[in-house]
């Protein structure tokens, strides 16, 4: 009886937690469709004017474009570097493979601000003044742990005899990798890439030290906007971002299945 009550209490808590978690997100979405420039609750009226206002807002589109570029290139770079290293570790080509893997995944344990400061100082010391390339280099470090973890996990579940099997069936080595290894680790690849992209695209604490007036990523620009002139334009941008995330998740689900991705 009491056990029943306890479980009932747990279910209520779960419901409350879900409402609590989604409240700020749904509020932002709701606010983006209001008419008034102040955020009253309950919201009044319906309009799309804030979406139109994005175009006139200062630097938001340029920042989004920059963030997308950086996130894409950083993810691609760490996918290549991380996958090569992960193969060497999983196939035990190198001594102390576990230490190598732990090292490549360790930036996630370092507070973002510390990482950003370290890179700022290093960039200054080495005379790197170009914000774009500094950001890109730093974001490869930010994304590497996500790639490393997921690719390692899926590679270590992969049976490399399958590559040999494909070769005995008439596939050349590169062909065998393409036909067997790639489909086998694609779910891990996709979820690693997705996490990495999100981590880079949303990154604030590392970027804040590396941007300059002309080169600003979206989180920096958004926070600026929120602090200086908070109006529903920010909410409109945020809503579009949420939509894009959901679209990406759905696309991944169609491609490889979220269940397979989540199991990695």
């Amino acid at each position: 009886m009491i056990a029943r009550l306890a479980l009932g209490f747990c279910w209520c808590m779960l419901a409350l937690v879900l409402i609590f978690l989604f409240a700020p997100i749904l509020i932002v979405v709701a606010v983006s469709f209001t008419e008034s420039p102040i955020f009253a609750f309950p919201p009044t009226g319906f309009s799309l004017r804030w979406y139109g206002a994005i175009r006139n807002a200062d630097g938001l589109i340029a920042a989004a474009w920059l963030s997308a570029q950086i996130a894409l290139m950083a993810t691609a770079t760490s996918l290549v570097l991380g996958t090569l290293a992960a193969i060497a570790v999983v196939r035990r080509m190198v001594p102390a493979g576990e230490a190598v893997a732990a090292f490549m995944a360790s930036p996630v344990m370092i507070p973002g601000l510390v990482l950003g400061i370290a890179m700022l100082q290093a960039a200054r010391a080495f005379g790197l003044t170009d914000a774009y390339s500094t950001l890109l280099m730093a974001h490869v470090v930010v994304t590497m742990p996500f790639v490393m973890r997921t690719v390692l996990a899926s590679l270590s579940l992969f049976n490399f005899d399958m590559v040999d099997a494909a070769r005995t069936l008439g596939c050349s080595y590169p062909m065998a990798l393409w036909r067997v290894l790639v489909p086998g680790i694609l779910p891990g690849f996709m979820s690693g890439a997705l996490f990495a992209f999100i981590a880079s695209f949303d990154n604030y604490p590392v970027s804040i030290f590396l941007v300059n007036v002309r080169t600003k990523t979206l989180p920096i620009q958004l926070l600026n906007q929120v602090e200086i002139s908070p109006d529903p334009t920010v909410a409109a941008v945020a809503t579009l971002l949420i939509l894009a995330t959901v679209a990406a998740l759905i696309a991944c689900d169609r491609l490889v299945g979220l269940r397979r991705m989540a199991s990695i």
Partner: protein
Amino acid sequence: MSLSAGLAEAVSEARVDPDYLRIEKVSKRFGSTTVLSDLDLAVGRGEFVSLLGPSGCGKTTLLRIVAGMLAPERGQVAVGGRNLTRVQTHRRNIGVVFQNYALFPHLTVAENIAFGLRAQRLPAALIGERVKEALAMVRLEDFADRRILALSGGQQQRVAVARATVVKPALLLLDEPFSSLDRKLRETMQIELRHLLRDLDITSIFVTHDQDEALVMSDRIAVMNAGRIEHLDTPARVYARPNSLFVMEFVGQSTRLGGTAAGGEHGSMAIDTGQGRLRAPGSFMAGSAVVLGIRPEAIELGEGPGDAFNTVRARLRDIVFFGARTMLYFEPANPADRILVDLARLPGGLAPGATVTLRWPVAETLVFPAP
């Protein structure tokens, strides 16, 4: 050994081309460990040869070298007269059934079987036909569209065989294909596989560390030890006339008595053992340490009728019943020795503790130099 009925036929075929697969002086080392050293092996066309040896003796390594997945330091491999040493795996046309099957989980059963045919870029209609045949051959017609992970172990095994044979390989290599099946299923599959390969007339090398499996299935058995083939012959001869103490110990069970050669003449000699002086065919220098081996079926209870038999007395320790046969274990005088007798029928009144007289033909006494 009923499956060896086709032996005569296979051997005569092998005579047509006894060197269809030729492995010559192949050596392979990993770091400082030498796994294969100057290994030679020849397999005739259409033959089914088992590669038998203890775990870690290099069986898989040899298969990988034959298939081209691993390069030997020295030596060469040729199939049908064609030297394959510099040929890449995918151009060797050698089928492999892997120990864990290595089926492709992202493909269906039919797609797995079609994989090799697609790699050859055959026309789709032909591929469909060949896949259908292969599915029928392994009795998996109803499973064509199943995912691999939704199959039982025995079904996966059959898919692996179908996938490897559908491309009509010049040579088929099987690496312990039954090791993850339970015993009942394994026995069925042994017979099934043997028939299948005979029908397809594919030359095969079959790796196993299960000696019964090797004895039942093979035309010939190659026993591997310390990086070489120690004995290559028909199952019956490997069992009855092992080349070395290792082969005798590895294949089947036997009585084992350590002793010292005490001289002799005309190819027969005397040997002093813990059970007294015995005789054996062969000639060793007097004083050299030897080991005698006797297969358990060769030994009978009771005094020998004459010169042609060795006779010993020993105390019976255990009687172990195996259904069709009964195994008797005796206490040897020397604890390093071992005496066992295999009887089809247990005489009444025999119980542990009794002292019994045993005899066996001198001609069936095996002698090896002591290790």
